[in-house]
């Protein structure tokens, strides 16, 4: 096992693409170290990316944001402009684990861990976020929903890593929100997660919406039918009921130690409605 802490993206990519057997990126380490401890992965090479300046910063440009792949959740919460523009995404990231975890866990790591229950991912998908992927053949940008393909599996190729997450500029009268269901008040993995982002016109009619669900399928899913329930409506009670029904209908969950199928299906609808209400309030305030 080898440990490297390069200072440029190119150097990191070179290391990751090298001959070294199993290589792993270490950003926050909150998933990687647990996997190593429980024998689920035994890397030959660990590449610590926290000493790469470009991956440690949040930059805002014309209302859009570039969040470095090694920026921790707590730093997102401390970034006032980001929090104002995308409160749902920041809240989702800040829900991951404890304050201790927040000092370390990153959006990119949450995405690349490819857990269907990742808290930040439904919020990012709803926000229309994309991931900048650096690799031996250069950089490419893909929608975040294209990164995870199955539990623990991503579409990243050998030597590739997520260098940054991009959040688009928010149109005016837009709002986003993320809600998850957990049995306790903290410290749990989402049993269901729902991200909603919507935009209103001057009359309060919803003109655009994205709804994403976590922990109800093999990966986070974007649910256009749920968004359709909102678009064209004033997000009234009827629209919210249709949204809930569409969200529930899109679920294809499993029974596991964290929840049953029937529970997840029902609660996905409940949370979709509640998250949309928050997003609506925010959109009206913007």
């Amino acid at each position: 096992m080898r440990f490297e802490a390069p200072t440029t993206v190119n150097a990191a990519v070179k290391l990751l693409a090298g001959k070294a057997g199993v290589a792993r990126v270490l950003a926050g380490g909150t998933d990687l170290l647990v996997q190593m401890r429980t024998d689920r992965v035994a890397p030959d090479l660990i590449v610590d990316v926290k000493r790469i300046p470009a991956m440690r910063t949040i930059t805002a440009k014309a209302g859009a944001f570039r969040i470095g792949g090694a920026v921790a959740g707590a730093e997102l919460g401390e970034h006032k402009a980001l929090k104002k523009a995308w409160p749902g995404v920041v809240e989702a990231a800040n829900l991951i684990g404890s304050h201790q975890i927040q000092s370390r866990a990153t959006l990119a790591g949450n995405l690349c861990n490819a857990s269907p229950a990742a808290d930040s991912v439904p919020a990012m998908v709803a926000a229309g976020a994309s991931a900048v992927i650096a690799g031996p053949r250069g950089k490419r940008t893909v929608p975040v929903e294209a990164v995870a393909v199955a539990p623990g599996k991503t579409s990243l190729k050998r030597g590739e890593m997520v260098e940054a997450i991009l959040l688009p500029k928010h149109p005016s009268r837009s709002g986003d929100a993320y809600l998850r269901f957990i049995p306790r008040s903290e410290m749990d993995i989402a049993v269901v997660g729902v991200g909603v982002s919507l935009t209103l016109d001057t009359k309060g009619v919803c003109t655009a919406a994205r709804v994403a669900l976590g922990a109800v399928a093999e990966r986070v899913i974007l649910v256009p039918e749920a968004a359709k329930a909102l678009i064209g409506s004033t997000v009234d009670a009827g629209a919210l009921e249709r949204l809930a029904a569409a969200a529930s209908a899109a679920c294809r969950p499993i029974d596991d130690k964290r929840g049953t199928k029937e529970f997840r299906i029902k609660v996905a609808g409940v949370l979709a409605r509640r998250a949309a209400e928050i997003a609506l309030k925010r959109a009206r305030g913007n």
Partner: protein
Amino acid sequence: MPKVQVSTTVNGDEVSYICEVDETLLDVLRDRLSLTGSKEGCGTGDCGACSVMLDGRLVCSCLVLGAEAEGRDVRTVEGIAKGDKLHPLQEKFLEFAALQCGICTPGFLISSKALLDHNPNPTETEIRFALAGNLCRCTGYDKIVRAVQAAAAEMRKG
């Protein structure tokens, strides 16, 4: 296994150590630096007994590699008191009987200090959420929350 040589600062003192790549900062503190105040309750970041400050941020030292600490600033429970003067949090934890067995106490002190350092007047709810990453099985948290409130009041007095 190839080893890594690390120089870092722990509780203000410069230290150097050699560790294996998969050794955590917690392993290093306990086994190589004899700082056994930080405890391992789970090894997976779920209990907070190993909480330390790393460059001014609260982390679980079981989820940090020893190798990562190169050039960083690490603060542990052993560094909270100043010489023979206990920190107000330490005093209030004792006064309020906020510990029974004491295994979680180092982690709670670090987390509480992290909270009060940036929020000198937290509400009960803020305290409870700030400490949610630290498990205590003995006290039911009641006396811990009260001790933090009392320490905050004491520290606000200056």
